[in-house]
Structures are given as C-alpha cells and as structure tokens.
C-alpha cells in the first residue's frame, strides 16, 4: 500500500499524455472530458483510500522510486500534512473540473494543462526530496503560466508574463538555497537534511539564516505573502474561472505548506516568529486595495492574499492551537474562496459583465448562485454559524500574546465585511428595469437590462451547492474537526477543550460586523470614492515588484540575524 503517493502523481500525468495522444489528429472533446474527469475522480478515491493508513494507523507511506533507499534515490512520503493537502487539492480540482465542463467549451489543451497542474500540485506535496520539489514547482508554475494566458487577451498575457518573471527569479533563489543545503549536508532528501543541516551540526549560523531566507523567499513568491504578492491580483483575475478558483484555492496553499514543511525540518524557530508580523501585514494591506476595486474577480483575488495572511500569522505563533487554527483556516479558505470564485464566474457567465457598478438586483434571476454566494460571503466575513467564524476566532484566541498583530487582523476582518457587503449588492441591490436604470452608486447609467441573462447551467450549480454545504458543515462541527487536525495531522493533542461558540467570540464578530457596515457606508460616499480612485492608481509595475522581492530577501536575512 506504499505506492499510493506514486499513483497520485502518475495518474494525472498518464491521463494528460493520453489526452494528447487521442486529440493528435482529430479532436474528440467528449472523450477528453471523460478521461480528465475519471482521472480526477480516481485520484480522489485513492486519497480517500489512503486515509485508513494515515489517519487511523498513523503511519507515513514511504515509496522509494527506482528501488533505492532514502538518501540515494528519490522517495515519496505521505504523512498527515501531505495527506491533508492532497485531499484538499483533489476535492477542489474535481469541483473546478465539473464547473469547467459547461462554462465554455474549452479546447482539449485546457484539460491537458489542468491535469499537469494537478499532477504538479500533488508532486510538490508528496516528495521527500528537495530538488524534486523544485522540479514539481516548475511544472506547477509552467502549467499555471499558460493557463493564466489561456484567454490570450492583452491583460492576461501581461499578467502571465509578470508572474513568469517574478516566479522564475524566486525559483533561482530557491535553487541557490538548495545548493547551499547540498554544500552544507551533502544530501538532498528532506529527512537527511533535517538530521544534519542545523547550527548544532556545524553549519555556521549566518549560512543557515541565508539558506532559510533564500528558500522562504523563493517559495514565498508562490505563497504570496506581503512584499511578494504583487503578481497575484492580475494573475488570478484574467484566468478562466475554474483555474482562478483552483489557483487561489490550492496553489498558494501548497507553496505555504511546502514552506511549513521545510521550516519544520530545518527547525528554524526564529523564522517562525517573523511570520507573525508578515502574516498580519499580509492580512491588512491587500484589504485597502481590495476596497477600491470594481472588477469582481480582482476583489476576490486581493482577498485570497489577505486570507493567506490570517493563515501565515497563526502559523507564525507556533503553539499547537495556532498550528491547528492555521490548518483549519486553510481548509475553510479553500472551500469558501472557490465557492466565491465559482459564484462570481456564474455572474460573469450569465451577464458577461465584470464591473461591480454595472451589476445589481440579480437575486431573482439566479437564486442558486445568489444563495451560495451569500453563504460564501458570510463565511469569509466570519459570521457565527459558518466556518470562517470558527477558524478566525481560533486564530484570535491563539494570538493572545501578540496584541498588535491581533489588532491588524481585527482591522482586516472589518475591511472584509465592508467589501463583501459591496459585493452582495450585486444580488440584493435594486432591480434594474428599463425605466429606473440608475446605477446604485450614483449616476452611471448602466446599459445592463435584466432580460439579457443566460441561464446558468446545472453543471455549474452543483459545485456551488456542495461547496456551500461543506462551508456550513465545517462551521457546525468545529471541535470535531479541530481535534481531528491536531491529533491525526499534527500528532499533538490539544491541551484544553476550546470553547468556540462562546459569548466573547460571538460578541467580537458582531462588533466587527457593525464596524464593517459603517466602513461600507463610508466607502460609498463621494469622499470615500475619491480615496479609492487614488488607491487604484498606485498599481506597482513589474520592476517595482521585482525590486521588492530582492528587498524582502535582504530584510529576511537581516531580521533573522537580529532575532
């Protein structure tokens, strides 16, 4: 049963090659869709099948490729963390594949790139070899570059080019980190590195800090924390909707989990402390830009970065509760972020418009999409019965010892509520008929009339419904899931039973909700709109974001030296 990790990587790859072989002369679109759907379902079943071994028997599956042992050959290992991320990847990939079947008839190459992206994601998580992780990161990014540029519009190609240059610079830094690790401890397998590559083991401390910061910045570009996130909003807005749901649902999380694994193995404790500050800044700053956005998908992309900030902050704290809260929020964020992207994709599919100001009063026209969007918006802004509330209050309780980051996260959640009320106005706003077509933001006359709406097909509604049910379920059974994460995945048991639905948490979320409404009222005033126009202008170009990558590397090394 050790060959489960291998099949998780090989099945999408083999299905992708089959797709190419079949469509070589004549395109058989139905067969391609069948192959990609079946291979995603099979890999989901295999992950489900592996839960018996990993969760119940608590063993890690080791698979030596080519029959050679640990440090000689490459070996795949699947422990609790790897199981968690590959399960998440398989679920969201299945949903976005079902979603993409009816959204637009994509060419066969779309499914080929989709399967390679899925294989790359599974590969990064499952390998036990640091250079093999680099190769799978490259496969993952090449597939996401082309999928970002899939629609071949000017903006999509520019976004993909920006992402390519920034991420290849990051990957060269990561490779330098691997070179220093190889020079330090002579082997590439992660378990071997853990034993030998440490300050006690004779590695000079300044070299250790340089290596860890090279790796963290190299992979951090893909995990999009604060100074390195400038490529993400453009990249996730101009991609086809199923891919932007997959990218912001899974790919940034997989890079974060890779950082998690490397920092655990290298025991770089002082780095972990840095993440508290980076995470809280990542949570707040994108919210300021998001409040001034008018493109619905760009607004959601900014919120992927800010929600990643929540996850990184609670990872930074390092206590058992905070690590469980970080993984729990990671799970919840994948669910409600893909739910929000799918519902916004439904709006774009039906009306063909992406501009917030031109859409209003769609509730009656697409009730399913509207209801699932409401559930997603309620859970991202942390309203009690839904999962966002649970994990955010867990993060708040684990951040007791750091008052300022807690305050930054508080501000970020207020901003979240404000802009999601703005987004809700698409569905709840005044009905738009030919007579009163005054936009609900003042005078803009919107040329959008209700009768032009296309009916959202069934295949796009099923993922929406199941994801909203999942959001609701993981909000209702918090203690069951937190104990599950801490005992099975992190293998540490929680010291005390945590009260989540306590009065203080519910009171806090109510306070945040009220402040959010005031902020929403403030944004829609004339004064608020002038500020948001100014913020919109401050888009940093490619050169500035590249410079920020180098500056953040320097800051990382210096801070690691001081702490």
């Amino acid at each position: 049963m050790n060959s489960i990790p291998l099949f998780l990587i090989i099945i999408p790859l083999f299905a992708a090659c089959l797709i190419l072989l079949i469509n070589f002369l004549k395109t058989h679109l139905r067969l391609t869709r069948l192959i990609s759907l079946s291979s995603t379902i099979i890999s989901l079943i295999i992950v489900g099948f592996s839960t018996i071994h990993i969760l119940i028997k608590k063993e890690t599956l080791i698979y030596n490729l080519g029959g050679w042992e640990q440090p000689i050959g490459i070996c795949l290992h699947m422990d609790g963390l790897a199981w968690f991320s590959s399960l998440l990847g398989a679920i969201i990939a299945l949903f976005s594949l079902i979603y993409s079947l009816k959204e637009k008839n994509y060419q066969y190459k779309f499914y080929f790139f989709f399967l390679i992206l899925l294989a790359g994601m599974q590969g990064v998580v499952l390998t036990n070899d640091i250079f093999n992780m680099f190769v799978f990161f490259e496969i993952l990014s090449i597939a996401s570059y082309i999928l970002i540029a899939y629609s071949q519009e000017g903006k999509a190609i520019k976004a993909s080019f920006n992402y390519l240059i920034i991420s290849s610079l990051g990957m060269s830094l990561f490779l330098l980190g691997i070179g220093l690790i190889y020079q330090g401890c002579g082997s590439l397998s992660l378990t071997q590195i853990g034993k030998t590559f440490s300050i006690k083991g004779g590695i000079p401390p300044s070299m250790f800090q340089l290596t860890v910061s090279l790796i963290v910045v190299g992979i951090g570009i893909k995990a999009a924390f604060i100074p390195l996130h400038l490529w993400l909003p453009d990249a996730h807005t101009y991609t086809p909707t199923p891919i932007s749901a997959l990218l912001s649902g899974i790919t940034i999380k997989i890079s974060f989990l890779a950082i998690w694994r490397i920092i655990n193995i290298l025991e770089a404790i002082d780095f972990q402390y840095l993440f508290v500050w980076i995470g809280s800044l990542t949570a707040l700053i994108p919210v300021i830009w998001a409040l001034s956005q008018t493109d619905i998908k760009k607004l959601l992309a900014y919120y992927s970065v800010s929600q990643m900030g929540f996850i990184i902050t609670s990872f930074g704290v390092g206590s058992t509760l905070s690590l469980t809260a970080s993984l729990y929020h990671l799970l919840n964020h994948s669910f409600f972020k893909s739910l929000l992207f799918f519902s916004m994709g439904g709006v774009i599919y039906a009306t063909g418009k992406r501009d917030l100001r031109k859409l209003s009063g769609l509730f009656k026209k697409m009730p399913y999409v509207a209801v699932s969007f409401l559930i997603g918006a309620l859970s991202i802004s942390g309203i009690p019965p839904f999962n966002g509330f649970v994990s955010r209050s867990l993060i708040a309780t684990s951040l007791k010892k750091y008052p300022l980051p807690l305050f930054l996260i508080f501000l970020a959640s207020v901003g979240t509520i404000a802009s999601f009320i703005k987004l809700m106005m698409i569905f709840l706003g005044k009905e738009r008929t030919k007579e009163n077509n005054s936009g609900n933001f003042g005078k803009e006359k919107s040329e959008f009339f209700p009768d032009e709406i296309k009916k959202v097909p069934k295949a796009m509604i099923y993922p929406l419904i199941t994801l909203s049910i999942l959001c609701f379920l993981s909000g209702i059974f918090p203690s069951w899931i937190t104990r599950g994460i801490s005992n099975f995945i992190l293998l540490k048991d929680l010291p005390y039973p945590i009260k989540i639905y306590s009065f203080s948490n519910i009171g806090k979320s109510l306070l945040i909700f009220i402040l959010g409404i005031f902020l929403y009222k403030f944004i829609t005033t004339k004064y608020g709109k002038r500020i948001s126009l100014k913020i919109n202008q401050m888009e940093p170009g490619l050169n500035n974001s590249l410079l920020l990558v180098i500056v953040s590397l320097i800051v990382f090394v210096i801070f690691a030296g001081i702490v």
Partner: protein
Amino acid sequence: MEFYLTFLILFIGIWGIVGKENLIKKIIGLNITNSAVILFFILIGHRRGSTAPIMEKGVKNVVDPLPQALMLTTIVIGICLTALALALSLKMYRKYHTLDISQIEKLAKDE
C-alpha cells in the same frame, strides 16, 4: 575565490531582470541568473585535480557527479522558461507593438 565570481554573475543577472525596461533584456537577465546558479552548483561539486566522473579503467579521483546530474534538469527548465517568456513577449509585441514594460502597463491600464 571562484565562488565569488559566480555570485558576481548572479548579481549581473539580477540587475538585468530588475533594472531593465525592455522585455527581451529581462529574459536575457533571467538566463544569466540561471547560468550563474548552474555555475555555482558545478563549483560546489568540484575538487582540485580530479577528472570527469566516467569510470573507465584506472580512473581514481573523480568530481562529485550529483550536482552535474541536477544541473541537466535545471538547464532544460531554464530553456522552458526562456521559450515561454519569448512566446509571451512575442504575443505582447503583436498586441501592444512595444517591448517596453512601462509602456505596456500604461496601454493595458487604459484599455
């Protein structure tokens, strides 16, 4: 001593990526950074007075083969990135008729 030269090449490459406006110069900078990293890896595995790792009869001390095997993979990945970046900049040139990144950003913004 040679290690500091590879770092010098790396800084030239990074300066090429960060400092330059033209797309093609950025891609050339990317290539220089990639080759600097490859040089760094090969130098890690080098030992004075040893030959290439081909084990014919009577070959005694040999250079460390592992970094060289890794660098084959990195070179091919460098090719893939450069080819994709060139294809994307070709598409951008066809659409915006300029290769200057700040012009492209201006044109794309007011589209």
